[in-house]
């Protein structure tokens, strides 16, 4: 039995243990903590599956940002937990457990009987990659071969943010998201919020830039930027912007708008929607990625910050 195998089996046990904990934990806060550690362990699994791009995304968004969101929600809702009902009785739980076990068994059978010659688009993706000017096949798929998915995903981010904002009470519409965080200026978090962002911003931009040829990309880079922004907001070093700010709204839609504009231009210059003229593929991809990075960073940060809770201009 090789060492790799032992490590992988241990990792699988840890992932399943953390997952079981998030379901079995007594409080939602404990479950959220479990979910964060589960996400980090899962990122290691993605590395084992040779999907480093996915591992970065899982660690940053799946574990990190979702974790912040869940932890703060769990802290707010803590008072309701004691009052919540016991849920379904034991017989119902047993029925649910059996049904879920059946689902798992059915999927396990599929996993064990997958055809030997696995279907793959890797050769096609690699063969077409030189035309895009990027070296990382995953980035090639995201930015060129399946650009429509990526474009729509940007739209989903903006729509989700509009959905969150629309939950604001009327009197706070256009105001600042969340509560104004005020911490002693000499505390640990404000110190972190002053020292970490310069490095974090550099790392975020680097991740986007390097994503062309190595693992990384606009998603991962944008998440790092969003995380830096959240640290700054949570430490009270800078207040969250009022959502009626024009610059904010323009920056938010810049990603999808530039993407769409390049896509439409592709109809004239390259003969198809979202097609790039071969000679300009790399510069066009960069032209799309830069505003996309901005949109992702702003949208992710604001999705965590939540709907406006203070009138614009209030502190």
């Amino acid at each position, binding site marked *: 039995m090789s060492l790799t195998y032992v490590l*992988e*089996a241990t990792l*699988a046990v840890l*992932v*399943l243990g953390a*997952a*079981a904990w*998030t*379901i079995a934990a007594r409080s939602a806060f404990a479950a*959220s903590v479990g*979910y964060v550690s589960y996400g980090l362990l*899962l990122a290691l*699994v993605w590395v*084992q*599956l*040779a*999907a480093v*791009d*996915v591992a970065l995304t899982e660690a940053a*968004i799946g574990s990190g*940002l979702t974790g912040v*969101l*869940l932890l703060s929600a*769990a802290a707010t*809702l803590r008072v*309701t937990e004691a*009052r*919540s009902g016991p*849920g379904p009785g034991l017989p119902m*739980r047993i029925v649910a*457990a059996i*049904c*879920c*076990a059946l*689902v*798992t068994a059915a*999927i*396990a059978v599929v*996993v064990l009987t*997958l055809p030997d010659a696995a*279907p*793959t*688009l*890797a*050769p096609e993706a690699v063969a077409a990659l030189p035309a895009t000017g990027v070296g990382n096949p*995953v980035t*090639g*798929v*995201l930015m060129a071969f*399946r650009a429509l998915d*990526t474009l729509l*995903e940007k739209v*989903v*981010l903006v729509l*989700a943010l509009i959905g*969150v904002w629309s*939950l604001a009470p009327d009197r706070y519409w256009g105001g600042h998201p969340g509560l104004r965080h005020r911490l002693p200026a000499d505390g640990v978090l404000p110190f972190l919020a002053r020292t970490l962002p310069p490095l974090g911003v550099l790392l975020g931009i680097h991740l986007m830039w390097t994503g062309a040829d190595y693992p990384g*990309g606009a*998603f991962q880079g944008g998440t790092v930027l969003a995380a830096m922004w959240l640290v700054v907001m949570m430490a009270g070093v800078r207040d969250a912007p009022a959502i009626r700010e024009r610059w904010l709204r323009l920056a938010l839609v810049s990603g999808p708008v530039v993407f769409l504009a390049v896509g439409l231009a592709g109809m004239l210059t390259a003969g198809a929607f979202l097609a790039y003229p071969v000679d300009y593929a790399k510069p066009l991809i960069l032209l799309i990625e830069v505003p996309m990075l901005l949109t*992702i960073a702003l949208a992710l940060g604001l999705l965590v910050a939540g709907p406006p809770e203070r009138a614009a201009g209030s502190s």
Partner: protein
Amino acid sequence: MSTVTLFGLCGAVLIGLGLFGALTHPQPLRKLIAFNLLGSGIFLLFGTIARRGAWNAVGGDPVPQALVITAIVVAFAATALAVALLLRLFKETGEATLDPTAPVGAPPGRSES
């Protein structure tokens, strides 16, 4: 057992666990966490199938890998919206329950406005 089979089965168990949590937990936030678990199990399954598509120097089929990246971001956006809905429900009613027969408490902290 190969890496792919091991983590494929792992994904299958995660889907079952998440489904069970989503069905049996009475609190919406716990359902949401369980639902995320279910989703990540599906992503993992997708990832193992991508790994099977390894070809030459490429460690896995990049198409499903890219789709999973998109999926993780979309799942986050949906979770953020669900959390915002839940917190608004709590602000309005002082409760966070999906049970329509539950007694409604006083809204918390209406001192602002």
